[in-house]
């Protein structure tokens, strides 16, 4: 009796066949709202770690960690200059597990910036932004910018010296944008200096506006992965495979005039889905029958690997957070600029440029960089994904990446008081005042 009720409840939730059957394995994926973002079957080689390094997945999981730790931190944090720093001190010394959660939030955020960057490198070097995935690269660039926005807005919230002056420098860089710069700065700060209004606005952006935007973009990004034909084939597969044959498409029933396809009579034995009767050529790759043997069920192969990636990410963030606390400096003091005053590290390349010319370095260069990133899939007309056939664009992109990383390294380690060049060990030895 009890067993029957339990079984009935279970079956009302889970309607699939047992997982020992192939049908059950497939149904686990497409009858589940959370899992159906995966295809029921995936190509075996796409699961190889060295193809994607699971970077996109890890980035998203870091975002999940950030949402959870962020909501917990919100329970103690009040966005007001007279209270914010006090709450940080409470989190640091009075709240149970406060330092750990704060550190986890901080380090996961830094990890997310790094992983987005590495993910973009992977996608670029494997040529995965090429047709039909051009638009998903654009969505990815927007996700990258949103991630930077989230990091930047989060930086102000502790209201310590580091936060205050990093945001003062950062918003002043924005103020150099032509025409809209001063207005954007005023709307962002809710005033003319970094103060009460700025703190509330950055808080709203950080906990509501930007996370919602990021989730919306993620939805589009993940959806497009599926609709653009799943993950791109690994490069080593391209080399061995013969040139991709133009797939022969069959139109069932009456073909449209524009569909130059062989016509086949509809069968009475089969129920056709909409996809099968609409005419026209699908833009995405599908699993061809001869590839069928090369593919495996997402359960358990993909899910197991993703679980391992999740676990490693979680352990990594927890381990770092146990050992290294998130920094908290003195209470923000608008009257005393620390020397040197540095923006967050991912903006130090920008600050390095700004230190040479505010307009060229702070506005023109970043605008050109973002536009160039967005335009990559449309400017690169070369259809080949093989490294040997993409020498020019690889060289240009590599120079671009190395230059950016070099600027960040210079800004972080080689700039001391008065933005003078210093040897990097000064920061370790505490040579600055």
């Amino acid at each position: 009796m009890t067993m029957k009720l339990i079984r009935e409840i279970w079956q009302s939730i889970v309607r699939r066949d047992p997982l020992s059957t192939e049908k059950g394995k497939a149904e686990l994926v497409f009858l589940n709202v959370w899992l159906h973002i995966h295809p029921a079957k995936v190509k075996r080689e796409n699961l190889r770690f060295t193809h994607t390094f699971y970077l996109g997945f890890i980035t998203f999981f870091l975002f999940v960690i950030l949402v959870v730790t962020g909501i917990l931190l919100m329970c103690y944090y009040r966005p007001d200059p007279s209270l914010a720093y006090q709450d940080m001190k409470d989190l640091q010394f009075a709240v149970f597990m406060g330092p750990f959660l704060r550190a986890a939030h901080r380090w996961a955020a830094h990890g997310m910036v790094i992983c987005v960057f590495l993910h973009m490198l992977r996608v670029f070097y494997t040529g995965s932004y090429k047709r039909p995935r051009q638009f998903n690269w654009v969505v990815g660039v927007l996700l990258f910018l949103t991630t930077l926005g989230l990091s930047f807005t989060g930086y102000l919230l502790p209201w310590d010296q580091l936060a205050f002056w990093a945001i003062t420098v950062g918003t002043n860089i924005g103020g150099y944008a032509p025409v809209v710069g001063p207005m954007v700065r005023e709307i962002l700060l809710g005033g003319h200096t970094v103060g009460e209004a700025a703190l509330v606005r950055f808080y709203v952006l950080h906990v509501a506006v930007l996370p919602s935007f990021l989730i919306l973009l993620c939805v589009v990004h993940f959806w497009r992965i599926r609709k653009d034909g799943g993950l791109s084939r690994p490069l080593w597969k391209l080399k061995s495979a013969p040139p991709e044959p133009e797939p022969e498409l069959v139109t069932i029933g009456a073909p449209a005039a524009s569909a130059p396809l062989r016509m086949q009579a509809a069968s009475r034995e089969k129920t056709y889905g909409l996809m099968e009767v609409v005419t026209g050529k699908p833009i995405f790759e599908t699993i061809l029958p001869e590839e069928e043997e090369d593919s495996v069920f997402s359960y358990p192969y993909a899910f197991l690997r993703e679980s391992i990636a999740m676990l490693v990410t979680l352990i990594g963030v927890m381990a770092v957070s146990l050992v290294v606390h998130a920094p908290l400096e003195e209470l923000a003091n608008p009257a005393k600029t620390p020397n040197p005053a540095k923006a967050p590290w991912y903006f130090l390349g920008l600050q390095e440029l700004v230190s040479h010319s505010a307009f060229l370095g702070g506005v023109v260069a970043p605008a050109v960089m973002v536009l160039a990133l967005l335009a990559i899939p449309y400017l690169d007309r070369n259809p080949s994904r093989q490294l040997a056939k993409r020498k020019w664009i690889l060289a240009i992109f590599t120079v671009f990446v190395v230059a950016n990383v070099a600027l960040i390294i210079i800004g972080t380690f080689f700039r001391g008081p008065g933005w003078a060049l210093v040897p990097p060990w000064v920061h370790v030895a505490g040579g600055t005042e």
Partner: protein
Amino acid sequence: MMNRRAFLSWGTAGTAALVSAVGVSCGALLRFLVPSVFYEPPQSFKIGMPADFSYGSPTLLPDEKIFVFRDRDKGFSVVSAVCPHLGCTVTHAADQKFHCPCHGSIFNANGTVQHGPSPRALEWYEVALARDGQLVVNKDKVVPPANRLMV
């Protein structure tokens, strides 16, 4: 039945109405984000009696972010301590120059840029005497460095 002329006129009018309604709404929302009242320190404020300031090296008022100079022959002058580059607070060094800690801008004694990325000179503000004998600084009135107040 609507003829072509009517269709086009109504279509144009309708589109124009829609576009302007959306435009006005967006403009209003944007305006909402710009505060009508700024709860910020006033731009014009008293800084104390002339006798409070010593001759020679300037006095930094940290909250107002200004340096007050008092010269025996030329009188009072006030200069902004905010670097026009990215908003850091400059220091006044023994060489009579202003140094910015953030990006190394150096301003000479009258505030003009001598070195570094600052696009503009430091601003000098009008200083006057209030009725009660206190000095009044007005940050909205930028004056040439040569302007002094003899007391």
